[in-house]
């Protein structure tokens, strides 16, 4: 039995060669392109009834792909994704870059796209804290606020450039993450959630009351937009023959930073730091006894996640031109939290998808502004009952280990002495 496992396992890690690889790349690329087109169609549908039909169809297809007769297709596409990830990512980035061009007649949709990207940045940040390290943070809006206020006040009062402000905003948010990380070293789970919740509420109240820092409930207004050289972000974006509405400036800015964020968060997960975070999430005591500095890693998780929250807030403030205490309420914290859980905690694509869906779907139901939170509540309960692990739960990537090493070890060790030992898991009997 172990022998068989071993063979199967070697086959699975055998890198795909030649035509098979090309086919995989084609499948993955086509699948991503198809998803993007489907998504664009959803955005283009104007009448709400049609959109509801569209949503229902999307959910139905997703369910069919999971266990219906189409499950085989899903499996094949999944395998293709596994072996040709660069192609899939490449197609996706191209599609995202083309988005403002496709919808250039609809500045509002481009703005929604920019907002989605901002939330992707924040959800990726919380994904590090919650998804990797398993630290529940229900006060994420604090970092958003810290970043937004920092760069806004620097720009308004001291004329500091956005490009410096965004970095300082991120760093300031990190400090707020660092502050809450200290109590987080002593409490877990529910209690940690409540500590961060209380922290979020407290910081919001302070933002309302500490007028000298925040202008109180009036907030900071007239925040200047970013600019590159002479190009102001409130001017239309001219790309060769194309003239895109000014919202495209913010879209590309947020998209670029979102992609960087996803890349950083991917690299972190695949590093020894990411492993240490996951170990803490799985069993803190065992992690500490295995040499993981749990204190340090927790502080790092909070600070890193908070940094991205601050960056998101900073972009938001300069895009909207205003930041006030109502921009980072408890509801904001919950929204980012739900984005991560909805997408699938620990999964980068999942968190990003959750963010995009939670920005776009409510926007589509703007006619029902009044009922939005009610529907949000219903959706939350149904989601938690039906699919608590999220749309795309974290899947362990197959590691490509040094092949020769593996072969050498297993062949070398497969001598007679070993075979006798390896013959059973207690089924040997006498």
């Amino acid at each position: 039995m172990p022998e068989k496992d071993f063979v199967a396992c070697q086959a699975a890690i055998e890198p795909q060669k030649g035509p098979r690889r090309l086919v995989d790349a084609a499948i993955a690329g086509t699948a991503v392109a198809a998803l993007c087109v489907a998504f664009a169609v959803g955005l283009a549908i104007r009448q709400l009834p049609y959109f509801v039909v569209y949503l229902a169809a999307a959910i139905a297809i997703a369910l069919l792909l999971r266990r219906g007769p189409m499950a085989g297709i899903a499996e094949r596409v999944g395998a293709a994704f596994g072996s040709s990830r660069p192609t899939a990512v490449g197609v996706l980035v191209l599609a995202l870059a083309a988005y403002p061009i496709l919808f250039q007649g609809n500045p509002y949709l481009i703005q929604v796209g920019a907002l989605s990207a901002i939330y992707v940045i924040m959800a990726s940040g919380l994904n590090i804290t919650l998804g990797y390290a398993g630290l529940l943070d229900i006060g994420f809006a604090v970092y958003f606020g810290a970043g937004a206020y920092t760069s806004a006040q620097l720009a308004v009062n001291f004329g500091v450039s956005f490009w410096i402000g965004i970095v300082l905003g991120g760093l300031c948010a990190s400090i707020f993450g660092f502050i809450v990380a200290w109590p987080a070293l002593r409490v877990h789970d529910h209690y940690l959630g409540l500590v961060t919740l209380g922290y979020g509420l407290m910081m919001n109240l302070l933002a309302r009351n500490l007028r000298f820092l925040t202008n109180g409930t009036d907030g900071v207004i007239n925040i200047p937009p970013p600019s590159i050289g002479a190009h102001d972000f409130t001017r239309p974006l001219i790309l060769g023959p194309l003239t895109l509405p000014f919202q495209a400036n913010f879209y590309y800015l947020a998209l670029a930073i979102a992609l960087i964020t996803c890349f950083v968060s991917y690299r972190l997960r695949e590093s020894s730091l990411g492993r240490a975070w996951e170990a803490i999430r799985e069993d803190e005591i065992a992690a500490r006894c295995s040499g993981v500095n749990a204190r340090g890693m927790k502080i790092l998780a909070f600070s890193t996640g908070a940094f991205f929250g601050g960056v998101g807030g900073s972009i938001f403030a300069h895009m909207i031109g205003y930041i006030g205490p109502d921009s980072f309420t408890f509801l904001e914290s919950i929204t980012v939290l739900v984005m991560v859980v909805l997408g699938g905690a620990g999964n980068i694509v999942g968190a990003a998808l959750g963010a995009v869906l939670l920005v776009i779907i409510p926007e589509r139901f703007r006619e029902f502004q009044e009922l939005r939170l009610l529907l949000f509540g219903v959706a939350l309960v149904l989601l938690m009952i039906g699919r608590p692990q999220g749309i795309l739960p974290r899947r362990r990537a197959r590691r490509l280990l040094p092949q020769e090493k593996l072969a050498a070890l297993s062949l070398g060790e497969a001598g007679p002495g070993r075979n006798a030992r390896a013959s059973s898991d207690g089924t040997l009997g006498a």
Partner: protein
Amino acid sequence: MLSENWAQQIVNVATIGGMYTLVAVGFTIFFGVLGLINFAHGEVFMLGAFAALVVARTLDFTSTAGGVAMIAAMFVFATLFCGVVGAAIERVAFKPVRRAPMLVMLITSLGVSFILREAVREFFPDGANPLAFPSPFQSAEIRLRGVVISDTQILLIAASVLIVIGLYYLVERTWIGRSMRAIAEDRDAARMMGVDVDRVILAAFFIGSALGGVAGVMNGLYYLSIRFDMGWVMAIKGFTAAVIGGLGNIYGAAAGGYLLALLEVLIVALVPEGSEYKDVLVFLVLILMLVFRPSGIFRQAPQKVG
């Protein structure tokens, strides 16, 4: 002069503390039987106030039996209504996720909280605005050496004290109380020993939510104004009171409610601009308690390790 002022403050503490206590007991019961922080509990409290308002609008007691009958009707209806709502929430929303990770239960309760609050805002007539709560009393006041106690306050203080005493009997002397304690200790062991866990959890939600409803009516009678989003603040305060007393500890919750009220009153009285920073302080107390005294101020071992 100063001492009279203090006596007055103590009356206020007793009134507000009673409300906090009733809400805190709900949190502590839910945490005991399910290990759940029920964010929707604040909304159940709010529903209690609205249920009482419906009673007041439907039945006109002013001409006939007068205030006492009306108040009785309000309390009875709100209590039953909230109890049933709480039990329904447990069955529909929490039961399916009972064994899921903590985060899943937490988000479920947030979802329920949104549903209840928004439903009231949307569907209750003029629900988005503050609504006047009828006062069945003629605002009679009793003056005791300069200390003013309204008849409403006397009613509220008496009611909360009576309910806490009743709760003591329920928890210590009845099968339902014993079963609740057994489940809080170890749900699976309780089931194996023949406790009908589902039924007891349902009953616990009925009781906890009903108490929340009572607090809602009290809140309406005391402030004479209710609003769809009044539950959220009360949830935080009731929860903080429960944490002060030690989550899972019913008597602790009762003490925590009065302590928190005392703390608030002291802040407003002693700190300049205290009322602005009152809530900041509540959150600070919550955080400090959770971090440094997670099992409450009574040093008792936590009855349930989350």
